[in-house]
């Protein structure tokens, strides 16, 4: 890809995200979303492969429909209440339409079918952008309108996202699809808590961004796109494979690692709000995603391939680890002791 075009796309991606997260007016927020969508499209389709083109078409159709629905819901609200402020979304029909539009944009469960396919059709770095940076503007809109949205509907979306994200990830062998389903189930945890304690949603999103960036960057470094490649990648960089295993267990939410913190706080908050059955259900459903994280971790370090003679041996090259991966790995495994500090800072 032309470096100038890449620069323009990256700058408009950052600009669109910052316009949306700092806006107070629906039109400005919609403009930021549109800039975001138009800027990521060349990055997805840059390889001109049929799969990349297909992913681009699917991404474009879903995102532009969701943007039009967001504008329509805010316009309905403005015609009935006379307000264009994001925080003053009071009309019940437009609240319902906004919830639906944001669910399409994020890939929550009744509208999740585009997300694994788009991730499968793009490269690992673009997939990282799609599952972290492109989720930030819709989450921000949801946070700003969270006090007027329907709690029952959000809880239903959250439970079904965690269920389907865990369930459909069980059967996959492609790492990008597995990470897409893990993203869907993490989004379920974020949506679950959004109407009770929006700060916890921000905390969960930041920690999820750190952990999933670590996984995507490490996989991009050893060029792993499916489980059988992960199985023979231990000859390349053995230390990186060990840290990938720790990061995956952190993403699954096992206790001494960072990923346990958001789950712990969310379960505590739900128990405080006397929603113990919901907390039990969502915890049990995250066991499903624990299964495929464990399978990834098992393939990355613990086992050797049974068919050692058939595979082409990979050379162990002296690649220097890049610094962002190292910092993100340290953050995504050892942040749990700092949780009182982080809670105070929120």
């Amino acid at each position: 890809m032309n470096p100038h075009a890449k620069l323009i796309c990256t700058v408009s991606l950052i600009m669109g995200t910052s316009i949306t997260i700092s806006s107070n007016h629906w039109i400005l927020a919609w403009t930021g979303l549109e800039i975001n969508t138009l800027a990521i499209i060349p990055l997805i389709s840059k390889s001109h492969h049929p799969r990349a083109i297909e992913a681009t078409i699917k991404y474009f159709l879903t995102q532009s429909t969701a943007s039009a629905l967001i504008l329509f819901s805010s316009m309905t609200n403005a015609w009935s209440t006379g307000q264009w402020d994001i925080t003053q979304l009071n009309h019940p029909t437009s609240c319902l339409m906004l919830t639906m539009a944001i669910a399409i944009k994020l890939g929550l469960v009744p509208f999740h079918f585009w997300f694994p396919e788009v991730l499968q059709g793009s490269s690992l770095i673009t997939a990282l952008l799609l599952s972290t940076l492109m989720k930030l503007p819709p989450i921000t809109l949801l946070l700003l309108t969270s006090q007027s949205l329907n709690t029952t509907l959000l809880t239903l979306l959250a439970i079904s996202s965690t269920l389907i994200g865990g369930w459909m990830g069980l059967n996959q062998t492609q790492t990008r699809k597995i990470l897409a389903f893990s993203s869907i189930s993490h989004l379920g945890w974020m949506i679950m808590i959004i109407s009770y304690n929006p700060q916890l949603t921000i905390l969960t999103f930041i920690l999820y961004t750190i952990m999933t960036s670590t996984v995507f960057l490490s996989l991009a470094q050893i060029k792993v796109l499916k489980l059988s490649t992960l199985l023979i990648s231990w000859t390349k960089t053995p230390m990186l494979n060990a840290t990938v295993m720790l990061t995956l267990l952190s993403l699954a939410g096992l206790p001494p690692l960072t990923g346990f913190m958001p789950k712990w706080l969310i379960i505590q908050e739900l128990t405080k709000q006397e929603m113990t059955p919901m907390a039990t259900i969502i915890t049990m459903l995250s066991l499903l995603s624990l299964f495929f994280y464990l399978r990834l971790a098992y393939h990355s370090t613990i086992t050797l391939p049974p068919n050692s003679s058939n595979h082409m041996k990979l050379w162990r090259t002296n690649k220097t680890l890049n610094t962002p991966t190292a910092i993100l790995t340290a953050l995504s495994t050892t942040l749990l002791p700092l949780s009182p500090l982080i809670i105070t800072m929120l």
Partner: protein
Amino acid sequence: MSPLHFSFYSAFTFSSLGLAFHRTHLISALLCLESMMLSMFIPLSIWPVENQTPSFALVPILMLAFSACEAGTGLAMLVASARTHGSDHLHNLNLLQC
């Protein structure tokens, strides 16, 4: 609900239903998207007249500009899908299914 409101609400609803349920050609999906945007142009351009807010008069042009950008991107992807998949049928886009 005045006849004006009814007209653009129903235009938006029917074009979004067409986008959701009529899935044969990419070009018809793009036309439905464009008619969704154009049906939103009417209320956005009536808003500054009815509420005496001239500062809002720029917004329909802004919306029209972005919808034109979207339509251009959509047509570019129509060409790309014709080059890689041979046609613009949406059921040809099945390489990435689970």
